[in-house]
């Protein structure tokens, strides 16, 4: 059996604030295989972005600290690397795309300079070779007149184009893992479709593993193989996209699916929303963190934090004491119609 690309083992990342310790990520474990496309889904404050920043080694002490855990990337524990070694990994083997492409680019350098900087840092090439690679990278993300546009500054690009540049930069060193943190949240829907299409195509061509961090279950459905659902610093459910969307085992996943408005929903049913709001990660409830909002909570939920365990389909896991008793699947509205009705070639 081949070695997993990334093993995250009991990661805990805490931040100290005046109000107290923020347990942003509180004991999560998962593995990623080479070429896997993994979605990490959750609402604000669930810890999904901090997970990504922890893997990238971008948690800055003293504000934040990885308290415990191991991050094995191709067998090597990233937490034991010094800053120079981490610099090699970051951008070279693991690349990251951020939500806001304007703040992620330096406004006073040309696009070409910024791309070449990354390439020169991670690859043993001359300036002119780096230039060639950079032009190729821009062409790969389907921006016309690549050599011309190398000389432009970020403000001369639109939002979608900037995000293409971020992808070009991320992929220019052929990383094994690309972490995309809400890459399309700031973009319009038609631009989002362009970018997701491009990312899917590039990831498939190169076999790059992608960790897609998002709040949008729609984007995940079209892009990922597997999903982790995060809530208040922990993973509450994980499985393949089919497991999560058609056979949810955790009441939060179920609530999230029921809260979503759907483009193809002609019935206009009332949304079965999750009541209340997520807890403060400074003052987490005792026991299951979802208990205060859960319709099915019992006494044990208030006392014991449920562990992530095998339940549902093979390979699926959920952190709920009552997963077996709840038949959440049958409570998904319109489940019978979840088989797609596709009219072939109807749009010609």
């Amino acid at each position, binding site marked *: 059996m081949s070695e997993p690309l990334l093993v995250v083992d009991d990661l805990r990342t805490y931040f100290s604030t005046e109000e107290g310790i923020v347990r942003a990520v509180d004991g999560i474990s998962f593995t990623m295989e080479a070429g896997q496309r993994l979605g990490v889904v959750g609402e604000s404050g669930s810890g999904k972005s901090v997970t990504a920043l922890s893997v990238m080694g971008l948690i800055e002490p003293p504000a934040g600290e990885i308290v415990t855990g191991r991050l094995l990337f191709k067998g090597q524990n990233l937490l034991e690397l010094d800053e120079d070694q981490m610099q090699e990994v970051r951008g070279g083997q693991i690349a990251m795309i951020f939500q806001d492409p304007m703040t992620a680019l330096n406004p006073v350098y040309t696009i070409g300079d910024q791309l070449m900087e990354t390439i020169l840092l991670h690859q043993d090439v001359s300036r002119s070779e780096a230039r060639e690679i950079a032009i190729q990278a821009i062409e790969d993300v389907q921006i016309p007149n690549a050599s011309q546009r190398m000389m432009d500054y970020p403000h001369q690009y639109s939002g979608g184009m900037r995000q293409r540049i971020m992808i070009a930069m991320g992929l220019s060193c052929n990383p094994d893992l690309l972490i995309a943190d809400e890459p399309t949240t700031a973009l319009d*829907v*038609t631009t989002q479709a362009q970018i997701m299409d491009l990312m899917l195509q590039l990831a498939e061509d190169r076999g790059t593993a992608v960790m897609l961090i998002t709040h949008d279950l729609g*984007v995940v459905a079209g892009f990922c193989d597997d999903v982790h659902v995060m809530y208040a610093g922990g993973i509450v459910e994980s499985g393949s996209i089919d497991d999560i969307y058609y056979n949810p085992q955790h009441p939060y996943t179920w609530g999230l699916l029921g809260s979503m408005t*759907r483009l193809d929903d002609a019935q206009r049913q009332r949304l079965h*929303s999750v*009541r209340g709001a997520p807890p403060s990660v400074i003052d987490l409830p005792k026991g299951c963190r979802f208990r205060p909002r859960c319709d099915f909570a019992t006494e044990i939920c208030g006392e014991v934090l449920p562990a992530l365990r095998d339940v549902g389909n093979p390979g699926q896991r959920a952190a709920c004491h009552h997963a077996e008793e709840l038949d959440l699947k049958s409570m998904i509205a319109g489940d019978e119609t979840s088989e797609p009705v596709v009219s072939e070639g109807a749009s010609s």
Partner: protein
Amino acid sequence: MTDATAGAAAMDAAVVDPSNLPDDVILRVNHLVKEFPITKGIFFRKQIGAVKAVSDISFEIKRGETLGLVGESGCGKSTTARSLLRLLEPTSGDVWFRMEREGEEDEIVNVATAKKDLLREVRRDMQIVFQDPYASLNPRMTVASIIAEPLLVHGEGTKSERLDKVKDLLKVVGLSPEHANRYPHEFSGGQRQRIGVARALALNPSFMVLDEPVSALDVSIQAQVLNLMDDLQDEYGLTYLFIAHDLSVVRHISDRVAVMYLGKMVEMADRDALYDRPMHPYTHALLSAVPIPDPHIEANRERIILEGDIPSPANPPSGCRFHTRCPIAVEGKCDVDEPEFRELEAGHWAACHFPEVQQVF
């Protein structure tokens, strides 16, 4: 021109006698234009151009319905909403609004030209809920004074009556009356949005503009606020203009939907007609781009990927504004002639030279 008020021609300002506004119409917008000047220089501010944020749109809203207004950033949807409340001064056009007063005959007011006192009067009936629940509430005011402010401005009730009303309103929007003395920072995003809704309801309006009311909220909170909007509409018979970029949310909440592109309306129809049988290629592309949280459907969907970006509204393309990105544009026609916004089927309007019913799902 006597029969001009009926059917398609009813949209034309020149022939509409506002007193003939059909009883079920609460608001009619005629040829609304809003331009923002582009100026040069520091002292003389010479005008060198204009951003045509909204250029000549007409539509009407029926009493008790929800009209969804969708489009991508910069299409002019928020500018439209603000112009019709006259939070922005329209460059030209009319906004006829039916002002209802108990025991009196309805008064039809042209909001676009109304003088100060009349404008103030009509605004009791027209309220707005803003997108950002963090920026739209004054952090130094208590919830009670925020919600009571419209009442105070319009000189309604005594202090204790106003406080009673505030407590009622808090209950209506699902907050506890004990929250009245707290400050906005003590509330989460969803709760703040409820406070914004309570403020908008304070004067018992008949019409509410909801400008991206849920886009800043998390999915589970979004659903709570959408359910609340539904309940309030049923309870008070409110008419909504719901503005959003999220087409799934708009399908959920609207009775009719209008799509804007670069300051123009490109399509308008009943909700299901628009989503299931769009006629304008932009609407079709927009719908095909929206992800659906269902892996099987996603795996089999055909996306229309539009090329390029939205052109600048300061210098919109000639002819049809969408022709630069349109997959079916015909050279010599679409880049020359501007298509008319016309009624292709009963209640289904589109501005395209080559409209064709498309299948999205």
